[in-house]
């Protein structure tokens, strides 16, 4: 074998090694990629599935509405329809009774000095301002692992502690303490903000996720992460019933295009439908069918156009 042949073998061995490489984050990588692709392939469903989903979504909306009044910072996962109806009825009773009880319990109540400052959720921490009288949390709660598809991004939550000495009021029995000055915390990168938004979405905190995506678009508007976030934000805005802003998000993404074009087009068609702009909606479905004729979404496009 010639010298060149031996070197060719070495080069091919490198190629072989690249293909064999397995990294700890592979499962996340795969789950995330699969999730993205499945997300943007709104497939046809049978009538029965559609009916079931509509019932479920209606119940969920009722639950979310009730939930927003009792626990505005949280959202609940979808529950089976019968549980939803029962819970909705129960929640009405709880709200009526609970509101009265809450009024009684909180009236004239002063904050207790020995209470541990509540740790802020990422969005809450982000929205706090440095000049607030109450102490900002020194360390925000790290995001919890999202179910299955979203990797944990640690140390990516923006902290808001001001870089100066501040006096913190404590309980009367405690002396005034000084919080040491801190170095300015680096701002989160575009990818970190995208991850935080994705985590919030994975945990069902839709409003938080939308806020993170908007923040990302404001801070790092030209980044790839901000570009990608427009499709995710658009989909969440649709679920929140804000079709006009969702449409803006999808159109902004489509102006530049990319791997999520199919999802953005489907989102755009859905937004136009919600806005009652039927002619433009049909044009969009036609475009989807023309550009992705072999994709499962083409089946849905054909069905929408046949209606």
């Amino acid at each position, binding site marked *: 074998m010639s010298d060149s042949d031996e070197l060719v073998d070495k080069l091919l061995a490198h190629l072989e090694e*690249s293909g064999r490489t397995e990294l700890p984050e592979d499962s996340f990588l795969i789950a995330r990629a699969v999730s*993205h692709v499945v997300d943007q392939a709104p497939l046809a469903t049978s009538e029965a599935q559609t009916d079931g989903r509509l019932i479920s979504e209606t119940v969920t909306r009722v639950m979310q509405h009730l939930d927003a009044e009792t626990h505005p910072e949280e959202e609940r996962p979808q529950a089976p329809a019968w549980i939803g109806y029962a819970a909705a009825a129960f929640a009405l009773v709880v709200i009526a009774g609970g509101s009265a009880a809450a009024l009684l319990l909180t009236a004239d109540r002063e904050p207790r000095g020995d209470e541990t400052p509540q740790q802020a959720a990422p969005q809450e921490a982000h929205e706090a301002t440095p000049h607030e009288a109450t102490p900002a949390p020194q360390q925000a709660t790290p995001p919890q692992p999202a179910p299955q598809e979203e990797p944990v991004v640690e140390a990516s939550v923006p902290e808001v502690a001001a870089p100066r000495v501040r006096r913190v009021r404590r309980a009367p029995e405690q002396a005034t303490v000084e919080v040491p000055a801190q170095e300015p915390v680096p701002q989160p990168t575009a990818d970190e903000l995208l991850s935080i938004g994705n985590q919030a979405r994975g945990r069902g905190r839709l409003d938080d996720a939308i806020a993170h995506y908007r923040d990302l678009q404001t801070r790092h508007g030209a980044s790839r992460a901000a570009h990608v976030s427009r499709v995710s934000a658009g989909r969440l805005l649709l679920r929140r019933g804000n079709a006009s802003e969702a449409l803006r998000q999808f159109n902004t993404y489509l102006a530049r295009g990319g791997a999520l074009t199919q999802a953005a087009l489907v989102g755009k068609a859905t937004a136009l439908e919600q806005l009652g702009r039927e002619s433009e909606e049909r044009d969009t479905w036609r475009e989807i069918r023309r550009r*992705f004729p*072999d*994709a*499962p979404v083409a089946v849905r496009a054909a069905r929408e156009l046949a209606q």
Partner: protein
Amino acid sequence: MPLVRRVLDGDREALDALLKKVAPAVLRATRSVLGADHPDVEDALQEGLLRFANSLGRYQAKSTVLHYAVRIATHAAIDAVRKSEQRHRIRDALSKEQQSQMSTTSTARALVVQEALSRLLEELSAVQSEALIMKVALGYSVDEIAAATEVPRNTVRSRLGHARRVLRERIERDTELARILRDMQ
């Protein structure tokens, strides 16, 4: 085929299951083309899976669905290499002198070798690159490649032979690459 049929019938869970089934092999193919540490691996993986999902309507069960996915993903990854600015940044950043100095580190050697492979994939036709990746990186036999790509075995052998010739010529032209390869264990 039943899983594919369910996907085409609009079953989202079936699509999820199918993608999870093929994704590890798709990731391997993507990594072998781009290099294990390439920053665009995730994007290329996503693009490969997306193209696969969008091409299911053309799948005719002449090869396994896994081979079909790998084939599509390989082409997606090759496209990603061609579009990648990263490779050009590496090439621009490393002058010949710097390459000489840095080639003592394994990371730098791997970069140079990966760049050589990327350039090779540019020089080969898509079907030749595909055959090379399937054979070397994914360990497919000639018969398996022939079945997956729907060509005779001799065509596969010819493509592999051509790829090897181009590779050898490239090494003979590039003395720095040859030196780095000689130094590699």
